[in-house]
């Protein structure tokens, strides 16, 4: 077994100067094209009255479900500003993980570079949303809770959870693909199919977990008016504007 069996990064189709066009990039763009074209086809003729198409129904269910989940997790905030980011993450990872059962498809989420990029996006989004909601001072006060002694641990936690986000998705997807490959060598009939089904389940759960954790991190940075904090803030500041 070579390194290219571990990561689709090592499968290079052709090189242009210093840049390698590897399987990760190709399949990432493939998934992006699939999502974009599907959305364009569906949104080209939306109907609000009478019968709606099957695809429109499907998309409405997905979007509505994501909105409900975001509203629940973020403690009743309006999902409108989070939906594009979280929804894109969820749909991209979900499609990538589900298509892993297609023969010859190398899921880009089985490469650490993809998952690390997504995790960095979440890392930055936490800052952006948090500062947008609470202002710079209000956001960075979070790091001094419960005591200023916890400051280094809070900072370490910020980075380590980002790392965990990346490695979790990568490890799950990579292990699914690798186990399927190894089993094909050992038991070429029937049994790999069972593992593929298990891999499908894992992939869907991992996509869900990635999106939910991203939302949980963002919610923890933006949520100022939760029940537990409300009393403490009322004592500290007296009146605070409900945004």
């Amino acid at each position, binding site marked *: *077994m*070579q*390194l290219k*069996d*571990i990561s689709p990064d090592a499968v290079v189709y052709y090189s242009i100067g210093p840049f390698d066009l590897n399987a990760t990039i190709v399949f990432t763009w493939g998934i992006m094209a699939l999502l974009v074209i599907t959305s364009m086809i569906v949104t080209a003729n939306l109907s609000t009255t009478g019968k709606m198409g099957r695809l429109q129904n499907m998309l409405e269910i997905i979007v509505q479900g994501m909105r409900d*989940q975001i509203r*629940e*997790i973020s403690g009743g905030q309006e999902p409108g500003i989070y939906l594009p980011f979280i929804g894109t993450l969820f749909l991209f990872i979900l499609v990538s993980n589900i298509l892993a059962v297609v023969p010859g498809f190398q899921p880009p989420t089985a490469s650490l570079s993809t998952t690390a990029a997504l995790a960095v996006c979440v890392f930055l989004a936490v800052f952006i949303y948090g500062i947008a909601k609470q202002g710079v001072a209000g956001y960075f006060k979070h790091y001094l809770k419960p005591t200023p002694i916890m400051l280094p641990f809070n900072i370490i936690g910020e980075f380590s959870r980002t790392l*965990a986000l990346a*490695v*979790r998705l*990568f*490890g*799950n997807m*990579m*292990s699914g693909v*690798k186990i399927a490959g190894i089993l094909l060598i050992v038991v070429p009939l029937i049994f790999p199919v069972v593992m593929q089904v298990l891999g499908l389940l894992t992939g869907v*759960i*991992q996509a*869900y*977990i990635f999106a*939910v*954790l991203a939302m*949980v991190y963002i919610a923890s940075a933006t949520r100022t008016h939760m029940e537990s904090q409300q009393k403490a803030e009322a004592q500290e500041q007296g009146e605070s504007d409900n945004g």
Partner: protein
Amino acid sequence: MDSMSLIGMISIFTAGITIAIGAIGPALGEGRAVAAALSAIAQQPDETSTITRTLFVGLAMIESTAIYCFVVSMIVLFANPFWDAVQAAGGGG
């Protein structure tokens, strides 16, 4: 025993030990988490969605420890820097 075979032997041994020990803790933890979630759902079926979501998030947190061990063992087996260095130095085949 030359350094090449020693590195290979220790790498394989370490990978096995890593994944073996690294699977014990998360398995116990996830078992307890699922048991607690099941009893909670049994007591309060109305809260199933919240409990399930929290359970999945918690399981993901626990599982990431096992995943770390798995990734480390994979690196030791297939992308071992010491092995590559010895191979580059031309230490046997």
